[in-house]
């Protein structure tokens, strides 16, 4: 670099108007572990990679995502020891504010003060700038905030950002994926995907750290909340930890066994579960004696389809929709005296042609089948 001669002293400008030490500090940040922050509608998310150099390292003894107050959290990219000092100072600043004004420090105020600290180290003798960039998220005034603090002392407010290794790719990914209507669960998912872009190896709950900030404050997610990490196309059943399919929900999951028994009490045999599974296993023709049953099954089917197609909605919503749909249909089915058999194939309900049935009914059902097979 042509500015090499001026790069030894922090307090000397180079001819191009730069403080080279700060540029170098930013290079240290860009070589650090990736960190991501995303602001959602009802909260904010911080995430970072926590790769260990050796398998002998005690994984959970070091934490990177730290609380500064109940409602503000912080993560970094760059040099860990510098970060620790800033965390200490930030916590002290927050408590001093609370002592002076008897109220929690607003996120903007904390960020300004931390940035002032970082700036001090760029204009003093005998010190070097901090080799970290901080991502700070907090909740006050009924809204979330996400800020970045640089070694130079500059601070920025972001909707979503990435820093550290591969940050350009991370930012590009976020530009595509970010929208204003994200909820916190979606934001966590997006943050994990962003980290995955630059992740070498297998990602698990032990080598990343996530912090979530919402109305009830800031907290770091524990490794046990790792279900969020499993980036399967479908959410998991919360009890059984298997992919949540309609089949699982309708015929297999033990938490709904009671409801199933109550609703399918008209089926042959005592064990409704076994009967249903048997039906699932063997392809049999279903017969419809009552129009009401068919209508309700139709609506259930289309609802299930929608649910399966829209599994991008948050996990919680999926569960709720599935439960509601199930309850609704079985409530209706319970009223019908002759429930014959349902044919369930894999993730979807298939309506089969009735046997025997008048021509009109058969054609209607055939139509339905064709429509459904197209959408599948």
């Amino acid at each position: 670099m042509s500015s090499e001669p001026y790069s030894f002293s922090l307090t000397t400008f180079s001819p191009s108007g730069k403080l080279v030490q700060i540029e170098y500090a930013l290079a240290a940040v860009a070589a650090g572990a990736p960190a991501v922050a995303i602001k959602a509608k009802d909260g904010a998310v911080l995430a970072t990679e926590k790769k260990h150099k050796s398998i002998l390292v005690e994984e959970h003894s070091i934490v990177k995502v730290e609380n500064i107050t109940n409602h503000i959290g912080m993560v970094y990219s760059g040099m860990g020891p510098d970060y620790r000092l800033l965390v200490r100072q930030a916590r002290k600043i927050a408590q001093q504010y609370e002592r002076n004004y008897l109220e929690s420090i607003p996120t903007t105020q904390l960020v300004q003060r931390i940035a002032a600290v970082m700036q001090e180290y760029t204009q003093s003798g005998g010190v070097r700038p901090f080799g970290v960039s901080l991502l700070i998220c907090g909740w006050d005034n009924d809204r979330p905030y996400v800020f970045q603090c640089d070694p130079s002392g500059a601070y920025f407010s972001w909707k979503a950002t990435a820093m550290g290794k591969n940050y350009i790719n991370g930012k590009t990914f976020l530009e595509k994926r970010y929208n204003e209507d994200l909820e916190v669960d979606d934001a966590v998912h997006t943050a994990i995907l962003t980290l995955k872009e630059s992740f070498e190896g297998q990602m698990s709950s032990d080598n990343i750290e996530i912090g979530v900030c919402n109305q009830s404050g800031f907290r770091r997610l524990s490794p046990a909340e790792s279900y969020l990490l499993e980036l399967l196309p479908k959410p998991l059943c919360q009890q059984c930890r298997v992919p949540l399919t309609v089949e699982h929900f309708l015929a297999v999951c033990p938490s709904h066994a009671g409801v199933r028994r109550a609703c399918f009490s008209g089926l042959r045999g005592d064990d409704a579960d076994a009967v249903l599974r048997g039906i699932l296993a063997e392809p049999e023709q279903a017969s419809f004696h009552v129009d009401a049953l068919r209508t309700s099954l139709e609506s259930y089917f289309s609802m299930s389809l929608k649910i399966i197609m829209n599994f991008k909605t948050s996990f919680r919503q999926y569960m709720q929709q599935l439960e509601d749909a199930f309850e609704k249909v079985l409530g209706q089915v319970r009223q019908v005296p002759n429930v014959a058999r349902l044919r369930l194939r894999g993730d979807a309900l298939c309506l089969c042609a009735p046997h025997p049935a008048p021509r009109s009914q058969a054609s209607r059902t055939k139509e339905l089948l064709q429509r459904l097979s197209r959408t599948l």
Partner: protein
Amino acid sequence: MSILGYNGGCVVAMKGKNCVAIASDLRFGVQLQTIATDFERVFEVGPHLFIGLPGLVTDTQTVIQKLKFRMKMYEMREGRRVRPKTLNAMVQNLLYERRFGPYFVEPVIAGLDETTNEPYICNFDLIGSACEPADFCVSGTCEENLLGMCETLWRENLDPEDLFEVISQSLVNAFDRDASSGWGAVVHIIEPHQVTTRRLKCRQD
């Protein structure tokens, strides 16, 4: 004579229905001699926020200057006005910083919270111990007289007109029985949409 009674003066604040009132006398004296009869010891520090500083006048002047300094810095840094509860914290800190060489003032604050318009009154002792009663706050050389008068006359949910009557009568009848206070009074009634300031005509002795 106690140093807090060297210059004389008193302040009273009361809560009403969606309003607060704060009032003080106007005497500035040096022991027995009255120097001025227009010395205001209640200051406006926000659109609906007042603070009264009875006690040693030199400290009244210094404390209000320091407080205004801190409040203006706060408002510029944070981009928002100081709320009554925040002012409480600031006054406490300011006074306790001088724990072992205190300012000889015993402040009273009265105001409405700017978003909720909730009435707020509070009084402090000279080293920053705060007290937030639900009814009225008194301070100054005739504070016992004021306590007696307020206790008798105050009722809950007084509307602004009645509150003015009550606070004026309490103040005037209290300082009429005190040699170091009196010589006129000022009353501020603070409502969400307006602040009314009235001067009272009373015995000039």
